[in-house]
């Protein structure tokens, strides 16, 4: 960062990263190693989670089915006492989480797996057990009871919608740039999603519907970031046809670096605000975004752009035309 006097003699412009000449592609092996470590540890933690529970990530009630009752007590509840109450009523496997602010006396009580036949029965069982045990009135502030069929349908549909939207983006990029650009962008986005979801498996946080919204947000964000770099590459390729692709890519990344840092920084700021003020309802959501924005910014530089160069090297190695995969159309 440096300051300088402008023409009118008044004080200062603040600028970041002007005239940097970092050789990003020279570090591609580090990037590869870094991405591999994170992707592989994501896959491993998903695998371990799969071995333990039969699903690669901890799924919320939305997806796996089950009942989740948020109960407000008259006075501070004791989780053990609640567990005794449910055990006495013959309900086992309950999960009890103290919810949000302690002053509110809230607990989140959940029961896994439910039949489709009577989704409401677990809620009634839990509340009956509690009402028998506590004389003070207890209040249910929210209930989710999801049959396993609906959960599976939702899981499939959210996955399919995301897949279709990725294909849509790939086709658009193919049309605007070249197929390899679309492929590289989608691979980068996939890489981000994999690592973020892996982080959920690693930390044991549940993936709920709001987290899906966060993952969609990070897909959009990462894609945006990648396209900005690609756009600059396309522009530079037109100007300097004799320069090697690796140099052009390096220069493009450097030219857009101040923008990249600014935008990621600002978006990170917004997400941080969400994480701090958003409360427990949004914690999974903001967690996904915090991880996603870091990885999304990184992947545009370290995954998507090097893929273009790797593709071109591969084509040259195969003895095909050494032309750059430049954009077909531009204005």
């Amino acid at each position: 960062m440096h300051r300088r006097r402008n023409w009118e003699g008044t004080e200062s412009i603040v600028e970041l990263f002007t005239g940097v000449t970092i050789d990003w592609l020279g570090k591609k092996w580090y990037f590869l190693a870094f991405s591999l470590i994170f992707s592989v540890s994501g896959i491993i933690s998903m695998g371990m989670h799969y071995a333990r529970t039969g699903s690669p990530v901890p799924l919320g009630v939305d997806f796996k089915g089950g009942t989740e009752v948020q109960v407000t007590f008259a006075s501070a509840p004791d989780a053990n006492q609640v567990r005794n109450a449910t055990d006495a009523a013959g309900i086992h496997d309950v999960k009890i989480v103290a919810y949000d602010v302690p002053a509110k006396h809230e607990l989140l009580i959940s029961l896994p797996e439910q039949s489709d036949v009577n989704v409401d029965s677990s809620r009634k069982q839990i509340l009956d057990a509690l009402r028998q045990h506590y004389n003070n009135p207890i209040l249910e502030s929210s209930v989710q009871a999801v049959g396993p069929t609906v959960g599976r349908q939702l899981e499939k549909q959210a996955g399919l919608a995301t897949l279709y939207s990725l294909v849509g983006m790939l086709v658009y990029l193919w049309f605007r740039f070249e197929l390899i650009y679309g492929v590289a962008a989608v691979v980068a986005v996939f890489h981000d999603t994999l690592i973020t979801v892996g982080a959920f498996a690693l930390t044991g946080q549940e993936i709920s519907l709001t987290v899906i919204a966060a993952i969609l947000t990070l897909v959009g964000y990462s894609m945006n970031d990648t396209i900005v770099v690609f756009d600059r590459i396309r522009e530079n390729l037109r100007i300097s046809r004799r320069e090697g692709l690796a140099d052009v890519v390096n220069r493009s990344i450097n030219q857009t670096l101040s923008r990249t840092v600014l935008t990621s920084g600002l978006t990170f700021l917004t997400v941080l605000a969400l994480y701090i003020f958003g409360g427990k309802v949004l914690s999974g959501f903001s967690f996904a975004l915090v991880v996603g924005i870091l990885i999304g910014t990184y992947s545009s530089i370290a995954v998507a752009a090097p893929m273009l160069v790797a593709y071109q090297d591969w084509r040259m190695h195969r003895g095909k035309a050494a032309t750059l995969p430049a954009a077909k159309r531009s204005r």
Partner: protein
Amino acid sequence: MKKNLNGKIALIIGTLLVFLYGIFGIPKGVSGAALEQAITQRIHLGLDLRGGAHLILQVVVKDAVNAETDNTVARIEQAMADSHLAYTQVIKPDPNTPQVIRVDGVDPAHSSAVSSELSDRFGTEYDIASNSSDHSFTLTMKPSQLADLESRTLDQSIETIRDRVDRLGVSEPVIQRYGLGANEILVELPGVEDLDRIKDIIQSTSRLEVHEVAGNPDGYASEQEATASLGGVIPPDQYLVHGDPQGVSSDGGDHVFLLKRVSIVGGRDFRDASAIGPNDSGRQGVNFVLTNAGGQRFYDYTSTHVGSYMAIVLGDRVKNVAVIKSAIRDNGQIEGQFSKEQIDALSLTLRTGALPASIIPIEQRTVGASLGADSIRQGVIAAVAGTLAVMFFMLLYYRGAGINADLALFLNLVILLGFMGFSQSTLTLPGIAGVILTIGMGVDSNVLIFERIREEMRAGKGAAQAVDQGFAHAWVTIVDTHVTTIVSAAILFMFGTGPVKGFAVTLFFGLLANLFTAVFVSRVIFDSHLNSMKAGARISI
């Protein structure tokens, strides 16, 4: 060289006014409360933000198929009798495939007559196959007919549920097909927290039917006894129903009745039901009224069956058995122990018509209004804090041009909310995620433009030219990033439901707004600033 910007500025102010109208409509006053009321009327909040109940119901369409083929069985029997064709029985061989009907033991001599009779009368609705080895004919409902029937059942269920919910006074309910699974209905009831009562009424199949009693009018003690009275086989046109009607038994215990399968009147033949108070002997009852067509049918039947017994069946239980003393036209009474809730529910379900099939809830959520309010508060605080922090930073970093960015961002949010108001879309918690991505990309557009202008200035270009070039270059990038994400939002909107859709809606509108504000509005502000500057002066960026 000065540009004339009046037209563009007018366009921007016009847009601002139009979308402010989208958010507020025409408020009744300018006080805070009036504005708040105006907003809540225009911008619909999802259940996760305002509290309420959400149900996904599975319609058991098999019920409707069963009813349809029961009817066909009766028609086949009638047709065979009319044409004097001999057969042993008409049955539905498998309860799991209610669309299949079999005519057994057809006299081989009548085989071709039966074949033509069946295909004449039922050929448009059923595929007919004959089996010469055991002289039977199998009628299978055509797949197109079956699909049509299922679709009609679903629509009818939705209609009925909507009618019931409306009469319960729930405002702004959502009742529609749920796209994910076959034969599922989504019901959203804003503001409803005590779901039990409403759910009972929604899914009440309380079909009121009147059937002819085939066996002993006093009933049997058990199913075995009832079956034994017929020599072990229940004829296909009859069936067993449990019940404990008053006056039949002194012990008040469960009895089994043998009834004709096809009802005399039932379901939509009833128009209304009301409670009749305890009479001298302390009995309560329900008074029911039939529709004109139903009344005519009931009259035709009762006038020719004086002395026969009829059973009143409610929700698959016999509630009353009565002897027909004289012809009855369009109203009657059912005596029995009914609670006020039962009668209210019955009255409501009769007035709204019966559901064509039974309904099972497979997902149920309620969000307390206070929890919803908490989510709003937290979401809004987070969004506002984030936006303010970003705006502050833009001013600090880009100084004069930061004002451009902030104005563009503000206008973007106005347009986004205005779109939501105009399109009657619902704002949900995931929708707030879409707003956050929109803010991010809006800021990004400005950053792209400003960085590019700075770059052009570093390359030695004058202010006007730098702005011109900066916008021209950044525009291409902005179009690419926005169109890509708009494409993805549109796809998510088409294929997604619930939260995915909520996210896609705000993102889609937000990015459209962004293309306008970040590029057009920001440019106009720059140009008007350039107009007022001395030649050769430097812009603040």
